[in-house]
């Protein structure tokens, strides 16, 4: 009889769920965390909404300002979740002094990263709800003609965020400057990913960088399907682009995690300090 912890799906799922539970217990231990995450996106939405009003714009990429920003904030919450949840998973273990133990357990590292990612998605649910209500109050206008296109776009956005998280999880710890890198990549996405700034105003030379980010296409698909009444045809196109980019990021992420494992075990730097 053999015990194959890493090959049986049930153990994989159990590892993901256990990590998710642990993540949620950890973040909910402090009152400030309970207050900060739902309120932060609300203030952010209001700040960008006033900025757009001050700019004299009445629409952005064909959508109402509130609608445009609502989707953008939705994407930015997922992006934050991918950076500070799944992306920061291994780094977090390192900071807690438990990365050595993690590398010695038979649990799949990918399951741990996925568990952090799932936990942070759940943690951010109140933020989504709060921003949704604010967007609706401030006049977000929805035009949904193909509900399945919306579902597809949301799924693509979640997958794109998880892909980014996988990529960052290896990179953060390999650079050994996880916090610094995480902070550096936080702001460019608002511009390059089209989250807060319409892609139409980006200079042409920035577009290739923008196109290489999976979240960019998923956000376009979500905006078009929820705000502009796009059908399955155009949504599928953007979702496909997002999935291709996500796949590439996943591969980079897996290579990064293998590399972390290698550095940790072969070089003997389990804690990677």
């Amino acid at each position, binding site marked *: 009889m053999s015990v194959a912890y890493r090959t049986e799906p049930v153990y994989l799922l159990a590892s993901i769920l256990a990590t998710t539970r642990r993540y949620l217990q950890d973040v909910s231990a402090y009152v400030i965390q309970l207050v900060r995450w739902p309120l932060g996106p609300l*203030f952010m939405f209001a700040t960008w909404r006033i900025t757009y009003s*001050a700019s004299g714009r009445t629409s952005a990429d064909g959508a109402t300002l509130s609608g445009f920003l609502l989707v953008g904030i939705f994407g930015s919450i997922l992006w934050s979740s991918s950076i500070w949840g799944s992306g920061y998973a291994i780094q977090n273990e390192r*900071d807690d002094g438990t990365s050595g133990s993690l590398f010695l357990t038979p649990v799949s590292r990918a399951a741990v990263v996925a568990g952090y990612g799932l936990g942070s998605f759940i943690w951010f649910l109140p933020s989504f709800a709060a921003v949704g209500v604010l967007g609706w109050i401030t006049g977000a206008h929805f035009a949904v003609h193909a509900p399945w296109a919306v579902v597809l776009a949301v799924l693509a956005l979640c997958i794109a965020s998880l892909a980014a998280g996988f990529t960052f999880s290896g990179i953060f710890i390999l650079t050994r400057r996880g916090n610094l890198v995480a902070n550096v990549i936080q702001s460019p996405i608002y511009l390059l990913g089209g989250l807060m700034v319409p892609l139409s105003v980006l200079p042409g030379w920035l577009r290739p960088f923008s196109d290489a980010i999976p979240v960019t296409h998923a956000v376009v698909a979500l905006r078009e399907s929820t705000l502009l009444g796009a059908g399955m045809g155009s949504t599928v196109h953007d979702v496909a682009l997002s999935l291709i980019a996500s796949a590439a990021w996943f591969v980079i992420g897996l290579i990064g995690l293998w590399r972390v494992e290698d550095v940790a075990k072969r070089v003997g730097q389990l804690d990677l300090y």
Partner: protein
Amino acid sequence: MWQSASVSSTSTSRLALQAAIASWKAKIYEHIVVNGLGGYVLVWVAFPVFTLASIGLIYRAHRPGLVGYAVVAIAASAFITNALYYVGQLLDEERHRGTLVNLFLSPAPRLSWLTGLAFAGLFETTVSAAVCLLFGVIAFGVRFDPDLPALVLSFVLFIASLWGLGFVFSAFGLILKRSNDLANLLSSFVFLLGGVYYPISLLPAWLRYPAEALPLGYGMQALTQASLHHAAIAQLAPQLIPLAGFALALPVIGVLTFGWIERKVRRRGDLDLY
């Protein structure tokens, strides 16, 4: 008697100055070594450049007049970020390393090493603000027409206000144990009401009242007017007078609050608890 008092006072001042300089040096050196020079520069360049690029691109087409405001205000916001995050986060880091209690038990005056740490942040923030101004000139063609006395006075009053605010935030960080989370929450509030992306005069009326109860909007307005439109001190009186009030009151409030909360935390004995 007089002589001994004088000696004691001199040595205390010297100790305070030495502690401030030592903590300033240690923090700068640590950040350069820990982050590497490349990473160090990157972190202080990426945020202002991308933030300014985003706001500048939004304003450029319809309200180009606001691009100059955004350049100066986003540069100045680096100092707000410093006040919000820096000292509180450093205290959190010391707690994680297990050295926070040692710091508080050392004979060096608390205010001295805290000021040294804050000034280390000020140095980094100045780099960040300079990059932002430079980027504004290169990418958006912003031109400055500064009135130096007004600019210097506005800046000094602005920094003094922020210094006081920074102590208040750090004090609350001591109690909450999560300064970074507190700073993240406050920064979104401050960016909304602080006149960073837009003048507070463009806020809806119901948001303008709380914004006017903070020093930030006055500081931003004075700095932008003094640096872009050659506004003299007399012209800036409506902003400088309330800002001066904040600059006098907030440092006192900050030091008193920090002392009060520190005593409270020490009495409870949970300074180094997570």
